[in-house]
Every structure is written in C-alpha cells, then in structure tokens.
C-alpha cells in the first residue's frame, strides 16, 4: 500500500481497528513524510482535546430545568385540546360524518320510495277504477266550479268581447 491509501487513516487513528492500526504503524515506521503528517494531526488533535475539556454549562441550570418542566406541563394541557389534532385529521372526521348523514338520508328515501312502489303494484283493477273515477270527479267538479265562477259573465252560447273581459277580470 502507498502513502495515498494511508492518508485518511492518519487522521483517524483512534477510530481504526487493531489490524488497521498495525498496518499504519508499520507504514509510519518506514515513511518519513507520512510520519510528519501524523505528528501534525496529533498536535492539532491535542489542541482540540484541550478545548474539549472545557466544561460548557448552562448559566442557570435550575432555571433551565424548571423552564423545560413548565413547557412539558403546557404540552400536557395543550394535548387535551382538539386543536392539537392535525387539520387533515379533523377534516377527515368531518367528511366521514357528512358522508354517513348523506348515506342514511339516501337509504331512508330509497326505502320510502320502494314502499310506495310496492303499494302501487299491489293495487287491483277495482282500485284503478276507483282512482280514475276520483280523478274524473275532481276534474269535473273543478270544471263546475270554473263554470259557475264565470256564470254571471253571460255569453253562454258565444264568446263575445264582454264575456272575455269578464273572464279575464275574474282570473286576475
């Protein structure tokens, strides 16, 4: 293996496996330029390790803890609200509810129509006669009413201008 293959491992000595370290150690023992690069990175790492020992602490740990705990408490109370449910979930529930209502009303209408249809199908010829007679009587009686309504317009045997005006007046 040449220097190129060891270049990356020189920077990762602590992360290497035992066998990788042995290979690198053997190379460093015979390669002056890689040994220099190894010393340089070791020096840089020594500086960084020194910085790593600096303990960085929150200015007020007790306040930070209580701030975190209050946020957690807020989360809990917010968690009981319907508004914590995502909008899409609420929309889905609403659409489902509307669909169910529509389905129920369609079903009721369908049952009602089919009941009426069954009633009509169950009618006998006698019933049809009675029904037709009723329609005839209704129309006839309406005709009578209309006839008697215009009785005082005169002109029973001919349509005069006066008769038409009288009818128009009553229709208004």
């Amino acid at each position, binding site marked *: 293996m040449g220097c190129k293959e060891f270049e*990356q491992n020189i*920077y*990762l000595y602590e*992360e290497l496996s035992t066998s990788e370290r042995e290979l690198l150690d053997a190379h460093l023992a015979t390669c002056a330029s890689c040994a220099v690069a190894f010393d*340089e*990175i070791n020096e*840089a*790492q020594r*500086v*960084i*390790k*020194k*910085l*790593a*020992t*600096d*303990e*960085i*602490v*929150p*200015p007020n*740990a007790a306040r*930070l*803890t209580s*701030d*975190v*705990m209050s*946020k*957690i*408490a807020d*989360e*809990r109370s917010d968690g009981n609200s319907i508004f914590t449910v995502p909008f899409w979930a609420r929309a889905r529930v609403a659409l489902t509810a509307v669909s169910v209502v529509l389905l129920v009303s369609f079903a009721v209408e369908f049952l009602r129509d089919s009941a009426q249809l069954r009633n009509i199908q169950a009618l006998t010829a006698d019933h049809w006669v009675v029904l037709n007679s009723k329609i005839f009587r209704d129309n006839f009686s309406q005709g009578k009413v209309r006839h008697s309504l215009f009785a005082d317009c005169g002109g029973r045997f001919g349509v005069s201008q006066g008769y038409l005006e009288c009818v128009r007046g009553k229709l208004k």
Partner: protein
Amino acid sequence: MDQAIELNLVRKSAEGDHQAFRQLVEAHQHLAYSIAFRFTQDENESEDIVQEAFVKLWKNLPKYKVEFRVKTWLSKMVTNLCLDHLKSGRKKNLVSEGRGKGNEPSIDEDKLEHEELKSIVVRLAEQLTEKQKAVFVLRDLEQLTPEEVCQALQMSAGNMKSNLYYARLKIKEGLQKFYSVKKPE
C-alpha cells in the same frame, strides 16, 4: 447514569411521571446545552434548543428504543435542531464568548492563548459542512464514541469516518495557518 435506572426513569416518564422526567432533564441538560452551545455560540439560542429538544424527547418517549441510550437520543435531537437552526439563518455573528467554566475572563497568558485558540477553532468549525461539523462537535469536542456518533447522526461508520477526516483536515490546516501567521510576531 446507570442504564437500568435510566430505563426505569424513561418508562415512568413515558407513563406521564413528571418527577421521573425531571431527573432525566437534570442528568442530561448539561450535555444538551454543551452541544447546542458549540453549534450556536449563543446562550439564549442554546437554551431554546435545549428546551425544544427535551419537549421533543418527552413527546417521543413512548417510541423509546431500549438499544438507544438517552444520551445518544438527546444528542441526535439537539444536533438536528442545531442544524435546522443553522439552516434557518438565525445564527448570530460569531464569535462572542461562551459562558462556561473555561470562559471566565482572565489575565493569565495561558488562558488568553486558550481562549484565542478556542475562538480560532470555532471559526474554523463554521467553515465545515453541516455533517462535518456535526461529526466534529460530537466526536472531537463532546467525545462521544464513534458508535454513539453514528447512532446520533444515523450515519454509517464509513460516512462518519469520511466526514471526520475532512473536518480534522480542515481544522488542522486552519490551525497551521494561524500558527504560521502568529509565529513571526
């Protein structure tokens, strides 16, 4: 914190026990703050990130996987929040001094040099890519194990090593420039 005790606290917290969660917060907030501060270099933003991370942790406790330590899980959440924070451009101009035991002003020459070095490394770290910076902060500054870094950043060992190599290379070159400029003075 012992793993069995931690697991017990996680279970209790997942059932809604605030006191158990408080113990987890007290045990891990220093690490969370330290990571956040190394990314943001700002006290208030670091505290906001720590609070957000713990709220996230609280919400996700029912999904807790036993093979993850809380430390690793929290490091992951804090790092992701920090990267989001950096992406969002809320980052303030560097470099103000951080608050920490090693940050008190001092007339000691060694300490001054230490502070100067710290400032240089922070600036150099700013030039890294997000992944390189995340790996550098967790591995070299927070001293997490390579396995913990991989878990926290959901990276393969090879990817982690590659990012760490470039991060160390850039930091080393930056430090060399700094020293080569400084030496003639």
